[in-house]
């Protein structure tokens, strides 16, 4: 794998094929848990970890599993990895585990994990697949964190609230109050706010793409619609 391919994988994960705003895969956790920056970042990183491991795992065994049995084996592998991550989080970052709760085991059902296993890791080497997992996971993490930031500011008027759950009581001073005496805006906290904010992020990304294209090709460039995936 040369550096050109590596760059391509990263560019795909972070921008061109971003899971959050282009592929629109794995929307369930994206919309549900992105109500604060800390929640988003933690779930994003947990998903990245699972995707990196599952990518390299699938790439390692792709030669030995019969074609018909591959999907069950992938699901099994992903489920095992997620459960291991769940055990580890429960043991070492217990308060955060309590916050993310049901969404950690739900990483199994996040179809982006299976989608990358099937469409990338089953056709590529271990290193490339691990890299793809990192890139895709980071792309998701970035989007979900921005989303969490927007929703937290509008919903609670703060940033980084709940960071003490990850780093202990001492980190409480890191919480930023953006709008003092804010009474909260429930709409931003609830799933509809997540849909709206995500829609705006997608629009912003498309606008940036369009602008870049117009610079290249002149003013009559148009956006080509992207294919949506299974939006689970």
């Amino acid at each position, binding site marked *: 794998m040369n550096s050109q391919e590596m760059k391509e994988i990263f560019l795909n994960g972070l921008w061109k094929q971003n899971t959050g705003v282009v592929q629109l895969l794995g929307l369930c956790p994206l919309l549900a848990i992105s109500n604060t920056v800390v929640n988003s970042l933690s779930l994003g990183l947990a998903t990245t970890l699972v995707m990196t491991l599952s990518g390299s795992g699938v790439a390692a065994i792709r030669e030995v599993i*019969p074609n*018909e*049995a591959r999907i069950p084996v992938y699901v*099994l592998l992903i489920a*095992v990895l997620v459960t*291991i991550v769940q*055990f580890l989080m429960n043991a070492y970052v*217990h308060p955060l585990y*309590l916050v993310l709760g049901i969404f950690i085991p739900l990483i199994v059902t996040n179809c982006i994990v299976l989608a990358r296993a099937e469409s990338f890791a089953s056709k590529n080497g271990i290193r490339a697949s691990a890299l793809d997992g990192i890139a895709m996971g980071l792309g998701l993490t970035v989007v979900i964190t921005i989303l969490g930031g927007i929703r937290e500011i509008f919903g609670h008027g703060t940033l980084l609230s709940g960071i003490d759950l990850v780093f202990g009581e001492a980190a409480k001073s890191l919480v930023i109050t953006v709008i003092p005496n804010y009474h909260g805006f*429930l709409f931003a906290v609830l799933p509809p706010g997540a849909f709206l904010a995500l829609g705006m992020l997608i629009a912003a990304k498309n606008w940036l793409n369009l602008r870049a294209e117009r610079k290249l090709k002149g003013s009559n460039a148009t956006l080509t619609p992207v294919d949506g995936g299974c939006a689970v």
Partner: protein
Amino acid sequence: MRRTLAKASFHTALNLLFFALIGTALLALTYQLTRDTIARSVEREKLKLVVQIAPATAYDNDIMKDTALLAPDELLGNDDTTVAYRGRLNNKPSIAVLEATAPDGYGGRINLIIAIFRDGRIGGVRVISHNETPGLGDYIEIAKNKWVSVFNDTSLDNRRDSDWKVKKDGGLFDYMAGATVTPRAMVKAVHKALQYYALHRDELFAQAAPSASSGKEKK
């Protein structure tokens, strides 16, 4: 043709079995490695809660060590033996901390820990675990909202049976718009736990403390 098909299926099945075994082994290993740490964090988390709801002035014994085992009871809503912590002041029973379960939350079970003074007043209630909707039903967590302190100082004496409902149902307990199933389940569970306490108080305090090994909570 049929032979080869059967052979292929058999091969596939063996493959699946192989990976299932590896997966199980990995999980068993991680479970073994993390089990003690998890048990310790759960215990620590519980201690933090106990300190919040049982005021330090209410007892002078080592409350986490003075435990009693409660058999499953319909009024407590749990299917397993649970541990109760007993606080004593000058060797006289003063406060008990027990676990109860609200089986009918919006997302299933809500596990509670309740401190009750000897006279039947509630010291405080905390939620240990729940699956209520994030952002809607999770205001029962003290980290999110003060709501759960509506139970402080309530008892069977200062609230009538008909008061043990949320205001929407004609009772005395506040709730938040958007989620009534959750507080409804909580109020019912706390009410039942008080009834349990009224019936079993003396027995609870009289029970001999179990030896260290059997006192460990089984999860």
